[in-house]
């Protein structure tokens, strides 16, 4: 019971900290409390508009887009074309950078290179067609153009350097921590026919049993030896 409460507090420490900060503000600076609440309300509105769509898209990528496709488009062998594709994916997406994390994480699990993940993240944040117009309206066309021409090679270099400095398998492990993460990763490897030949109703239930350690990784008949091998790697 106590141990459970402890992990719960650890997992939610950020929100607990925020609650504490607001409580202090309410006692000592009520004006700040109400202003902060109002600003946060505005943020939340933006988040609610965007996040459900973002997570639905990341879920669809997981289930539908094959590993091979992602490796071809965004893997380390994709070269400059992959980089340009990454800029494109980033720049047509909407929302603040935290909305980009779930989608890019799904791409990473499917085999996108770290450099391209970084490029997508940065482009998601910086390169936005409607924003170009807004920026040049307020700060001038020259300002906007100069900033973008400097930023584009910049984000590619940042991607390249990040890939050099960080070990991809470590990042993947962080991306998969927790049973939920492992289950999602397992689902991504299964064919998704929900044929039931493994003895479970759906690929999802089989993945769940695998993640809990209740099933063997060689039960998927349509996937055969190749899928069993990949499942074993994850487990």
């Amino acid at each position, binding site marked *: 019971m106590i141990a459970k409460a402890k992990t719960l507090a650890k997992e939610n420490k950020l929100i607990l900290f925020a609650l504490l900060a607001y409580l202090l503000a309410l006692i000592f600076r009520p004006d700040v409390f109400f202003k902060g609440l*109002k600003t946060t309300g505005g943020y939340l509105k933006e988040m609610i508009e965007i996040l459900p769509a973002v997570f639905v898209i990341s879920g669809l990528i997981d289930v539908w887009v094959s590993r091979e496709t992602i490796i071809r488009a965004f893997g380390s062998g994709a070269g400059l074309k992959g980089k340009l594709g990454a800029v494109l994916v980033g720049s047509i997406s909407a929302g603040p950078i935290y909305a980009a994390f779930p989608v890019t994480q799904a791409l990473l699990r499917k085999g996108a290179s770290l450099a391209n993940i970084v490029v997508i993240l940065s482009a998601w944040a*910086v390169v936005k067609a409607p924003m170009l117009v807004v920026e040049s309206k307020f700060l001038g066309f020259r300002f906007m153009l100069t900033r973008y021409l400097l930023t584009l090679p910049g984000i590619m270099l940042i991607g390249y350097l990040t890939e050099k400095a960080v070990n991809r398998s470590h*990042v993947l492990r962080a991306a998969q921590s927790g049973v939920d993460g492992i289950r999602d990763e397992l*689902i991504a490897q299964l064919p998704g026919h929900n044929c039931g030949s493994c003895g479970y109703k759906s690929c999802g239930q089989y993945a769940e049993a695998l993640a809990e350690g209740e099933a063997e990784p060689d039960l998927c008949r349509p996937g055969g030896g190749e899928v069993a091998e990949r499942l074993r790697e994850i487990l």
Partner: protein
Amino acid sequence: MSLTTLLLLIGAGIGLVWSFIKDRGKTIESIRVAKSRFVGTAVEIVGVLALVGLFFAFVPPNSIKELLGGANVFLSGLYGSLIGTVTIIPAFVAFPLSASLVEKGAHLVAVAAFITTLTMVGFATAPIEMDHFGKRFTLVRNGLSFAFALVIAMGMMIFL
């Protein structure tokens, strides 16, 4: 609701409908994946946003303006990138804000640094990023983005 948000919603909607027509089981699977990820992240995002909201209620925008128009351009650029790092505001709010900063005497270099770190570097969102990609990746990416924001800002000084 902005146009890009609308496009995103339409994109997700079309994707779902297409997926549902092709394979019901897979669609339900994808929604389960989406739901479990959403639940895992939403609490943390709310916490971050609440803290940033409180921070901005506490620090008046006027004090930000004073920092960005100093005599030392490099220092103003550095302040600009630091402020952009700890700030989360939608970019379409940032541009009018930047324009008013320039009017009040802020350097273009400082404003460029501010906009660049504002969008690319996330101090407040770092816990969420670590959840998705781990500590090292987050530190390296944000550190490099910060350094490049300064380089880009200095480049602006040469070209403008």
